[in-house]
């Protein structure tokens, strides 16, 4: 009687508990994705301190990278101007490339560190102006140097028209070089002041200013001598003349510059306009000998520019006009699906056909081009997850101040369509599984009630089945991996090493980050790898050298490149 009562009470109780558990699980399932009763992140800081154990450890020494980079930029500008002064344009071109690369790295760093409102931004702004001047100085002095060869060539060919052309181009270049050097020198005091605030040595920079003045003086003398000589050898034609006028004298992006003049005397009715010694327009004068050309200011450098007109061996004067830099603004927004869109304006004028760089953690991830309305849009090719990106406009070819957008969060969804379907089916599957579990539990309990003895054959067969299954599994797991004949990392490294060594090194770094087990190795930093491998001194030495190349702009020689590669192979082997 007692036993019967027990079984009556016990047996229905267990399924009831199972059902209750299932109901409970069903009720809490919707909250499974955000079980945020308490997380360490929700208690991550107070007014006095941050809870550092929940923050990502970076060990970031940005000053140790930024200040040497500023000195390197000065050193590059020093050797650049020195080589221009020595007329060694081949070396000067390499110096200019190096200087521009380091300046670009510095710009990226300022954006990455979010220092756009600081004194560091002031230094960056002054350096951007120096960069324009030095690029212009290099191009103009190189062209001016070529004129000497052309002068000899045309003199030998007894071509007075082209000799005059050389003389006029020389005049235009002299004016531009004088203006450029004056602008470069005028910034000296301010630049030195800001640099000294950061403790950056300015000796190289000061020397470069002195060398630039020497370049300008040398060009002045040479051109004076050339003009006197050409005018003596080929007197100007008295029966024909050409005039030129430019309005307005100062223009900004989007303005219209009007160039007009008149030809008097007999001869050809064709006229050619030269802007900064390069052909701008070919046209024909009207019946009364006048000509007119309108030019919209778009892709032209900030600063002074020269113009002259020529027709049938006669040359106009060389008027100048100034292009003034205008501020810009970039807006950026996420369009979903890992895409962004934005707008680039100068005041309320759209900036057309201009490149806008998209940076993530200071690294460029895409370059988008604006359309006629100044709008840009496109995918970023970032891996799935959340990324903070900014849009930067800093193209020197436009008379526009650099600008960048506020940081925008871009979410890149998982690329596999199957995963989305899986997410949709997740809840019904969970519910089905729970019902199956409940049904199975009830069935099991009911079937257990008479406690029948299991058939002997069933008990005997199980171990054999398991062993066979395991053996199959082991065999499957131990099957040899397909061997690859080539190493894609080394292939990528060698492909990039010739043109962009920092990029080549980046391939090696990503490979090491992946081998060290970092998530998203493409977006890992050297700091991440240091934290992941805190006691690997060999790796730390490699990372320090890597940072010097990537951030401080050092260009390693062949021997150092061999070291990078051999150490990489060794480190990769150890990590493997």
């Amino acid at each position, binding site marked *: 009687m007692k036993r019967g009562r027990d079984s009556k009470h016990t047996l229905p109780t267990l399924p009831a508990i199972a059902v209750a558990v299932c109901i409970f699980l069903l009720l809490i399932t919707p909250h499974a994705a955000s079980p945020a009763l308490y997380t360490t992140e929700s208690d991550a800081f107070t007014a006095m301190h941050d809870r550092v154990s929940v*923050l990502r450890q970076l060990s970031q020494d940005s*000053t140790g990278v*930024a200040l040497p980079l500023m000195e390197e930029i000065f050193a590059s500008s020093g050797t650049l101007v020195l080589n221009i002064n020595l007329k060694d344009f081949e070396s000067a071109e390499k110096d200019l490339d190096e200087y521009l690369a380091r300046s670009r790295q510095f710009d990226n760093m300022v954006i990455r560190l979010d220092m756009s409102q600081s004194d*560091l931004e002031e230094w960056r702004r002054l350096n951007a102006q120096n960069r324009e001047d030095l690029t212009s100085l290099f191009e103009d002095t190189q062209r001016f140097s070529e004129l000497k060869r052309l002068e000899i060539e045309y003199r030998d060919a007894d071509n007075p028209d082209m000799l005059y052309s050389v003389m006029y181009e020389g005049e235009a270049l002299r004016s531009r070089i004088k203006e450029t050097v004056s602008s470069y020198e005028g910034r000296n005091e301010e630049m030195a002041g800001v640099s000294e*605030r950061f403790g950056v040595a300015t000796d190289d920079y000061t020397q470069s200013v002195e060398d630039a003045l020497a370049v300008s003086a040398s060009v002045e003398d040479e051109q004076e001598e050339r003009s006197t000589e050409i005018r003596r050898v080929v007197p100007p034609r008295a029966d024909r003349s050409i005039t030129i006028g430019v309005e307005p004298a100062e223009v900004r992006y989007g303005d219209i510059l009007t160039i007009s003049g008149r030809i008097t005397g007999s001869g050809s009715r064709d006229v050619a306009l030269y802007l900064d010694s390069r052909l701008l327009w070919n046209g024909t004068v009207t019946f009364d000998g006048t000509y007119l050309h309108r030019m919209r200011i778009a892709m032209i450098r900030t600063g002074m520019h020269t113009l002259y007109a020529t027709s049938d061996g006669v040359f106009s004067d060389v008027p100048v006009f100034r292009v003034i830099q205008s501020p810009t603004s970039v807006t950026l927004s996420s369009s979903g699906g890992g895409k962004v869109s934005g707008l680039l304006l100068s005041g309320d004028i759209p900036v057309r056909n201009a490149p806008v760089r998209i940076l993530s953690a200071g690294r460029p991830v895409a370059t988008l081009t604006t359309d006629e309305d100044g709008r840009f849009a496109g995918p970023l090719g970032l891996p799935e997850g959340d990324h903070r990106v900014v849009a930067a406009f800093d193209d020197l070819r436009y008379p526009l101040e650099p600008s960048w957008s506020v940081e925008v969060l871009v979410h890149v969804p998982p690329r596999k369509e199957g995963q989305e379907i899986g997410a949709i089916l997740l809840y019904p599957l969970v519910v089905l599984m729970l019902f199956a579990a409940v049904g199975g539990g009830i069935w099991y309990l009911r079937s257990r009630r008479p406690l029948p003895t299991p058939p002997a054959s069933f008990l005997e067969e199980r171990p054999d089945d398991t062993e066979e299954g395991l053996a199959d599994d082991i065999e499957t797991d131990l099957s040899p991996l397909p061997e690859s004949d080539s190493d894609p990392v080394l292939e990528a490294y060698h492909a990039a090493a010739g043109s962009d060594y920092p990029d080549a090194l980046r391939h090696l770094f990503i490979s090491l980050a992946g081998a060290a087990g970092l998530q998203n190795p493409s977006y890992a930093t050297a700091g991440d790898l240091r934290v992941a491998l*805190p006691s690997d001194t060999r790796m730390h030495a490699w990372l320090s050298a890597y940072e010097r190349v990537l951030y401080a702009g050092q260009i390693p020689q062949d021997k150092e490149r061999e070291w990078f590669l051999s150490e990489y192979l060794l480190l990769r082997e150890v990590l493997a």
Partner: protein
Amino acid sequence: MVPLRVSSSPGGAGIRPSLLIACLLILLTLGAAGAHLQATSAELSRFNPGWNGTAAFFSLSESLGAVIHSPNVAPHDQPDRYILIAPDGTDAEPIVRGVLAAGGIVIIADEDGGANELLEALGLEMRIRPGNVSSVDMEFASPRTVRATVSSNHSVLQGVETLVFNRPSSIEGGEPLVRTSVLSWIDHDGDGSPGSGEELGRYTLMASEKSEIGDVILIADASLFASTMQQVRRLHDNQRLLFNLLDSDSVMVDAMYGRPADADGPAYLVHTVKSAPISSIIVIFLLMMVVAFAFRRQIL
């Protein structure tokens, strides 16, 4: 009243197993409740075992032989080193003057300016300048976790090169011992980046000043002693600094005049009672009364 002495076995008398388990559970519950009532969430409190307390530092201090100066522990005769964390007011002045007069070192860590009153009373020029110093040289993913380097020698900085600070303020006056890099600023608006009025520059986070024949060291970040800074395994030379500060013949750590003495809620009552000099006598008396009562009623 039902007696507890109930026979559970045929051979002799004893406590029933269910009663024993109940007693054990009650004792465990009382123990847990006692521990809970003694703990607090007050910032930098030595009774706070959480990440923002200083329980770990006080535990370390005791393990290294330092005397904790609390209400029921008389001050050390003449410690040669005295550590004050986030002091408020000038109550500690007599002890500080005694240490300095004997040529000792007083270490004061503070970030909200509460120590300035004491510094002024001691006739020192150093002052805490409240305001979050931030830097691009950050140890964690927050510019407020500032890395700073030693700029001048001092015995407590032996073997120390780089320290990590956690939302520090800065120091005016004194001889700078530890300074930030030049790409640092005081983040007035809390946006994590330098803006207008937030000038880049080097800020002093640790300084010293002579007083009589002793030395006062001022640290602009009490968080150096918080448990969260000790929960990270590799934090440059922070651990070394704590060992250096506690490495002396007689070290006394204050737990009376600063935030480590703070407690709130039930913990305040518990520690107030515990720290009263007569409390031990009362507790022992009450326990004896309970035992006597139990014997009289044949409970025990």
